[in-house]
């Protein structure tokens, strides 16, 4: 798994899936989206996206198809599958539960 991404483990996969929820994108576009959405806060090593995408492909949560990009390059577009969508929902709710719990503890302890 990516070594030094500056992103908590597991969240990268979640972010990628979330970004893909609104429609298929290729690798570079996914990286751009994450950049923009995080207000340049997450300085991800962009290449580490690819091991995560391979994992998603292997698990069958995304589906890849080769197309030509706007700039005329051959790129692979990733699309969230139905199983992936279900997985994403499960993970998001789990993440919400966990983070609100953590937040509550941190608040109470301060």
């Amino acid at each position, binding site marked *: *798994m*990516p070594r030094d991404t500056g992103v908590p483990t597991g969240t990268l996969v979640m972010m990628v899936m979330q970004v893909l929820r609104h429609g298929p994108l290729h*690798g*570079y576009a996914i*990286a751009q989206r994450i950049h923009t959405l995080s207000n340049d806060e997450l300085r991800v*090593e*962009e*290449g*580490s996206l*690819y*091991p995560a995408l*391979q*994992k998603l492909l*292997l*698990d*069958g949560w995304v589906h890849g198809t*080769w197309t030509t990009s706007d*700039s005329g*390059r*051959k*790129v*692979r577009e990733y699309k969230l599958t139905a199983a992936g969508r279900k997985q994403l929902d499960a993970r998001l709710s789990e993440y919400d539960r966990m983070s609100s719990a953590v937040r509550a503890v941190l608040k109470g302890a301060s």
Partner: protein
Amino acid sequence: MIWRRLLYLIRRNKLDRELVEEMTAHREMMNEPKQFGSVARLREESSDVWGWRWLDEIRQDLRHGFRVFKRSPSFTLTAITVLALGIGLNLGFFQLLNAALLQPLRIRNPETLVRLRQMAQGFDSSGVAFPVTQFVKENNSVLSSVITSQTERTGWGEDASEIDANFVSSNYFEELGGLPLLGRVFHEGEDDRSGAAPVVVLSYQFWQSRMGANPGVIGSRARVNGRVATIIGVTESSFHGPRNNRAHVWVPVEQTELFYPGSRFRSDWKSTGVDMYGRLKPGVTVSAAQDAIRSVMASLVDRLPEGIRKDPWLAATSGAAHFRPPRENREISAIIVLISSLCLIVLVVTCANLSSLMVAHANARAREFQMRAALGAGRLRVLRQFVTECALLVSAGLVVGWFVGYGAARWIAVETDAPLAISLMPDWRLAVAALSGACVALLTVGLIPAWRSISTQQLTINRSPRTGFQRVLIGVQVMGSCVLLLVAAAMTRKLQSMSETDLGFEINKIAVMEVALERYGMESDAAANYWRALRESVNANQAAQGVALSVFAPLGRGSSSSVYADSPGLTVTDMTVDADFFKLLRIPLLTGRTFESSDTRETAIIVSRSLAERMYGSLEVLGKNFPKSGEGQRATIIGITEDAKLMRITATNGAESYRPLTPSDLSGARLLAKVENLNVLRTAAHAVNPAILPSLRWMHGDLEDKLQAPRLARTAAGFVGLLALSLTSIGIFGLIAYTVSLKTREIGIRMALGAQSQSVLWLLLRGLAWPVAIGAGVGALVVFFGLAKPLAGDPLYADPSDPMTVVVSLAVLVAAGMIAGCVPAVRALRIDPSRALRED
């Protein structure tokens, strides 16, 4: 998920290409491509996700292993040869063992079939009298059928060439599952009326070798013992009856009289020559059947002959145990223990040898291992590399060994003239044996040296000469060689002592003539007349120098023996002979006299020296009763002879008793004669009665037959012993050569300072003294305490503690070790000090 993973494995190259393409495109689109990270590393991480990294690593290890072996072909070849021999021998022996003892008999439902032997107080015979079999068949409630079988030498064809005819009950094939290849086999109730057409079934092998495999023989006529019979079928090649018998042809026992007119065989209560089998009724156990038959036998007592009237019964042994009685099973397991421990020792020796070879090889590759460690390879990775290489070697050794083993088993099977029914086809037992052998080899050859070299290599920068482990290995090899040599030497010694003079009787130019007179219905008077005429006819010939009659021919197939309560542990061969027997075979009479015509079984007996000494404690036994304590009529001892190994030539616990031949024995007697050639007897027999076909052979041939198995065992043990010895020598040679290479500098300095060559030799060889001494000592102890019992027992009777045996074996062992060690050491003495000092 698993399927997708497999799919990824298959399409890995394509996926990898796509990934690289994708990442390159991404990188080119970026403003700051540096932000992307290393494509090579990320590509590796991505393919890690696919989960096939271990496969890549194994492939790397294998490739590396192959490269290493290619670089040192002589090492590889040696290692594979050593392994192939070690594993191969084990597999070969196991294959034979498996075929002969473990695989179920190839007959129908052997587990519900029992063999029945005639027993009585003081009586034990492998066979039963034919009327007894029929009586039991009619009167028992535990057997659903009774099968009988008896083999006779008989004449075949117009020229009456000798073959084995098996007279069997007509349910024989049906019960044992023997199917015809051509025609038909017997079925229940073959025609036995006089005047019926005699029938004969051929064995597959006989049909092949004698009838040219001609399918047209069915329905044709052939002469069996001079009578015309119709060939009705040929059996399948895999059918050999219940005891791997090698009969050439089968004849229904119901038709005995058609082949031997006047035969009283089927009503003769005396002869116990029939193999009897019974099929258990469902739910009846072997011991229940035995008990039930025992009570049936009780009602027979009056009709049985003298010797077996006291508590007669039939001992039942199950087909599941190959019809072996418990005693035989114990003997066999002793042999199995012996052979398998020898095989295991060979494996240990080869593994120790290879192990030291691997250590040397690893030492030579120390630089490579250090380099790999320096480049960040973990210990486990290096260990795995090592083990992978060993696995390669072991697999190659296993494959070659499989063939070596098959070859060895084949050779032994052919040499021993093993029953045709033995199947050497590999089965699961063999596969398990092969794999476990390979695992042992892998563990000892691969893991131990690997672990050792890794744990020392990484620590020691300067390679200090450590040969402790190798010395232990040498000790192990010496131990193994010592065991094998001792065993081989003991067997050789035993064979040597089995020469003619040691048998205690003359066999040179002694011919044996067998005539089944009882088969022709010739009893008492007729038989006596026949023998008298024959004797006269033979004696009239210049080329004959003596004739005698005996119920059993010495060294022949049939025999009878007893064990007496007064001389426990002594197996007494019971002979029934005429007075000329002793003179003809030159068995010296110590005191007393031989038989006279007035002697009978009940009044006179001659005993051998051992029997007298063991039963009475002295040779002063003339006139005493025999046996010492016994009930009923006892014979008087009239003479003592020297011991003669008439039947059990290897046994050390044997003795003989001789009873006089009486008229009732004549129909079953054999004629022994000292003649120049067999034709003397043949013409004499023809002159007396041309209708009776005798079977003739030299006693020498019988001795050869009996010696064949021990000779083969000796050859095999000797071969294995030499093999172990040469492996050990190679090991010692290697170790000393290695020590020389480590100490070149030291030797140079010592010699420059004027050291004597003896002291330099001692410097090199002293490391060897302990391993050889301890190895030989432990080996000798293993033989004396572990193997002495199976070696000394039936059928080897070899004594490994015989001083000559021990001295010769140890001398050979030490001499071989010395030579192997001295060759490289002496070469070291010729080192030029000035050059040695300049060397690294």
